[in-house]
Structure formats: structure tokens, C-alpha cells
């Protein structure tokens, strides 16, 4: 027991655990919307894209949250612009722009060397650079997103489930969509330091998918995914210290282990619930809900 509690003697670790727990909870909460809207690839791409901005801001000495945030916004606008021209699909646009941005980040570090925040920390996460400012940032952001989600719950649900009818019913779906993108980008920025850009997508997707296997209710899924994300962050950060691996891989592996357990325990019912979560539209096209096929 004493060995388990020993890392809590260090302030950097206490900060890291708090940030990892809140980051996990935040990503779990945001991940529900990301997964149900089939935006997992956008989350994955955006996190890689932001790395380019991270590298550039580290080199020129600009605040990395500002630099990487602006970079993420520019990338999102470029994806949107390329997609709107309909020459290539959204998935291809995300693939080209975000990986190019990621590659640029790697090239900048290779040519100009590593300054400021750690290169490895950005890729795979680190507990060492976490300070009290990060603790307050992630705590405040998680609370702000939870409060906004509480008061915007009905709009979020309707817009995610049936955006067209929601818009026709007077819900301002454009604002809801913009809010979701803003929260996604800020969550990635706030989580990047602990989890790392290469693994953020997993912290968005795994808790939401596990929660979906456990419930058929949107509200319960939100609560469960938030809790699961928080637990994965806490356990993963502790495991990271004891196993001497970076926090990102450790947190993701804890999530993956939980996913495996729930996948086995919930059996075919849980698996049916998650069909098509990632590629929702493609799966829906194949699954006409006739009276016999609709029974689960």
C-alpha cells in the first residue's frame, strides 16, 4: 500500500494525477458526441494537426496553447474549404491536411532542434511538465464543459441524433456544431501535455464506446463515459509511474483493458449496441430497420 501511495509525495505527480483524471473525464464526456456523430477521425486528425502548431510555437517561443490552437483552427478551416469544393471527400481532406501538418511539426523539430517544451511529451505525454497552471486550466475547462453540457443537453441530444429535424424545429444547430468543434479542439489542447497527440483519439473513443456497451440511454452514456475516462486517467497515471512508461500509452492501455473486459462481459448485447459507432453512416446504410431485423 505504501508503495502505491509513494508517488503522491511528489508534487509533480499529484498535479499529473489531477490533470490526467480531469483530462480523461473531459475526453470521455466530449468523446460521447465525437463517437455518436462519427467524428472520431476528425478528433484523431485534429490532434495530429495541432502538433504542427505546437512545434512552430515552441520554436518561436509563443505560448503553445495559443499557437497550437490557432494552427488547429486554420487546419479545420482548410479541411472544410477543401471538402466544400467536393473534389475529394472529407476523410481524404483530413488525411492529407492533418498528416501534412504533423509531418511539418516533425520536420521543424528535426531542422531547428528541440526548444522549450519536450518533443516526446507532445507525442506521447509526460507528467514532468505539468504545473499548477495546467491543473487549474483542465479543472476549469472540465467544469465549464460539464455546465454547458448540462444546460445545452436537450439541444445537444436533438442535434446529434437528428440535425435536420432539430434545425427545422428551431434549434440553432449551427451554434451547437460550432460549440462541439470548439470544445473538441480545446479538449485536445488541454490534454495534449499529459496524453500526447498520438494517443488523444483513443481517450476520446474508448470511454464512449465502453459506455455505449453498458447503456441504451444518452444521459447515462454521458455520465458513464465521463467516469470511465476519469478512472482510466487516474489508474493509467499511477500505472505509468510504477511501470515506468509514458502516461499516454499507460492511460490508453488501461482503457483498452477495460474495453476488453466490458466487451467480454456484455457479450453480444454490448457488441450490437456499438455496431456502426465509428462508421455510423455506412453501417446504417446496410441495416434497414425492418420489423424482423430491427429486433435486438
Amino acid at each position, binding site marked *: 500500500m505504501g508503495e502505491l501511495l509513494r508517488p503522491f509525495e511528489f508534487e509533480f505527480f499529484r498535479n499529473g494525477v489531477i490533470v490526467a483524471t480531469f483530462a480523461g473525464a473531459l475526453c470521455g464526456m466530449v468523446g460521447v458526441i465525437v463517437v455518436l456523430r462519427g467524428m472520431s477521425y476528425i478528433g484523431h486528425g485534429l490532434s495530429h494537426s495541432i502538433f504542427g502548431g505546437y512545434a512552430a510555437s515552441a520554436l518561436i517561443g509563443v505560448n503553445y496553447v495559443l499557437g497550437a490552437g490557432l494552427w488547429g483552427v486554420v487546419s479545420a478551416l482548410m479541411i472544410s474549404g477543401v471538402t466544400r469544393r467536393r473534389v475529394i471527400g472529407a476523410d481524404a481532406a483530413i488525411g492529407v491536411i492533418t498528416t501534412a501538418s504533423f509531418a511539418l511539426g516533425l520536420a521543424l523539430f528535426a531542422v531547428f532542434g528541440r526548444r522549450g517544451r519536450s518533443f516526446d511529451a507532445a507525442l506521447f505525454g509526460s507528467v514532468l511538465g505539468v504545473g499548477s497552471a495546467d491543473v487549474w486550466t483542465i479543472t476549469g475547462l472540465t467544469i465549464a464543459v460539464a455546465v454547458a453540457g448540462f444546460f445545452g443537453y436537450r439541444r445537444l*441530444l436533438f442535434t446529434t441524433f*437528428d440535425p*435536420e429535424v432539430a434545425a427545422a424545429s428551431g434549434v440553432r444547430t449551427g451554434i451547437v456544431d460550432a460549440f462541439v468543434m470548439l470544445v473538441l479542439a480545446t479538449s485536445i489542447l488541454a490534454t495534449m501535455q499529459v496524453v500526447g497527440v498520438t494517443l488523444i483519439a483513443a481517450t476520446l473513443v474508448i470511454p464512449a464506446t465502453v459506455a455505449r456497451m453498458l447503456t441504451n440511454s444518452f444521459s447515462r452514456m454521458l455520465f458513464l463515459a465521463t467516469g470511465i475516462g476519469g478512472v482510466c486517467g487516474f489508474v493509467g497515471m499511477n500505472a505509468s509511474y510504477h511501470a515506468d512508461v509514458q502516461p499516454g500509452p499507460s492511460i490508453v492501455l488501461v482503457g483498452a483493458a477495460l474495453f476488453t473486459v466490458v466487451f467480454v462481459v456484455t457479450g453480444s448485447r454490448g457488441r450490437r449496441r*456499438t*455496431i456502426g*459507432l465509428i462508421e455510423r453512416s455506412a453501417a*446504417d446504410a446496410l441495416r*434497414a*430497420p425492418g420489423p424482423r431485423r*430491427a429486433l435486438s
Partner: protein
Amino acid sequence: MVDLNAVTCSYDGTPVLSGIDLAVSATQFTGIVGPSGSGKTTLLKVLLGTVRPVFGSVHRSRELRIGYVPQVETVSWNFPVTVSECVLMARTRGRVLPWRSRDENAEVEQVLTRLGIEGLAGRHIRELSGGQQQRVFIARALLGDPNLLLMDEPTSGVDVRTRHDVLHLLDDLHDLGLAIILTTHDLNGIASHLPHVVCLNTEIIGEGTPRQALTADILERTYGARMEILEHAGMPVVLDHFHHGRVVPLRQRTGS
């Protein structure tokens, strides 16, 4: 309630609707028929207000309240939502608190009872039969207290009994004063039973009572295929496997 005047819509420069004139009255009960890609869903969305015409105008009366029932194929059936949560989406605008009030619970219960699906409130939408699923979305539309109900292929993928039930439910709702416009591919099971039919293929080819609109000439111009019209109990019956003046079973046509 809604007047469409010379409405033209296009996607990427390709016209989907062209020169549509349609006046929707408070007693409307209309079926829109036409081949796939003829603009049926787009016409519903113009009425709904989610698609804007590139030419022409749409006038809506002030008291217009529209309920929309989407095509079941477009619904995400794996979405984690129960019947009552789905129906209550109609009560989103202007609501801030996430939980339902006692009044809202009573309203949901009332509309589910009205549609004969009481007791299903806590079930996931995927766990219902095709007819029950259709009723859930009708219930959601009705909870918004509409005076015009738009339905996109309400009987696609359902069996004959369910189609019959849905048609009678819509007839009851129309009798209670609800105007209804629906799209359908089912000429005999649905369209020929309605008081008013519109044959659409980018433009309106013909409209009127089923006897006026479902004629061989109008249907050939609408679908690009020759059909024979019989009459049964005063209603037109459309035969589509029609070749050189007689109905031909598929095996004979392919020569096997």
C-alpha cells in the same frame, strides 16, 4: 398554409425540382409519388424550410406548425435513445434544464397512448417493430402540436399489416384536422387510397384524385415505363409488369 410558386431547386447545378407550383391547404392529405431521385424528399424539405429554392418563392402562413417524420432508413438506430427521450426531442426549443417536468412526462404518455404504443416509453428505439418505430417518430412530430405533418416514405420496409395500420392512423389524424403530405413508392398500397396524389419527376407531371393522377399516360411520363391501370372498388390499381398489352411474369420475360 404553404404556397410554392415556380420553385426550382438544384444540387451542384443539377435541377432536382423545376417550376413547382403547389398550394397546401389545411385539409390537405396528399401523396407524392415518383421514381427515385425525382425530387420527392427535396419537395418535402422545401415545405419544411430546410432546403431553399434557387428560384421561385415559398409563402408560409403565420399559424403554420410543421411536424416532420423522416425516412426510417435515415435514422441512426444504434443511437442511445429510448422512446420517451426520442419523443421528448420535440420539447427542445426554449428548454434549459435537461430533466423532464411532470407535465412533459404526462404529455409524452398521452401521445404514446394516442398512437397505441403506451408501455414502450423506456424501450430503446431499435427494440421496436417497424410499425412501432414509425409511430415513435409520428409521436415526436405530434408532440410539437403541428397543423401540417410531412412524412418521408412512412411505409417503406414495413409489412402489409403495418402499412395498413399506418395508413389508418394517418386517416384518423387527418379526420382530427391535421393536414398531411407524404411521399411514397407504393402506388397501390398507399397512393391510390389518398384523396390527392401528385406525380413528380423534377416537375409536377400530374395531380388530382387517384383516378385523375394515376393514369397510364401520367405514370409513363413520371416513371418512363408503360403501366396498365385497372379499377377495383372505385380505386385505380397499377400493374407494372406490363408488356405488349398483357401482364407477364418475370420468368417468362427472361425466357427461362
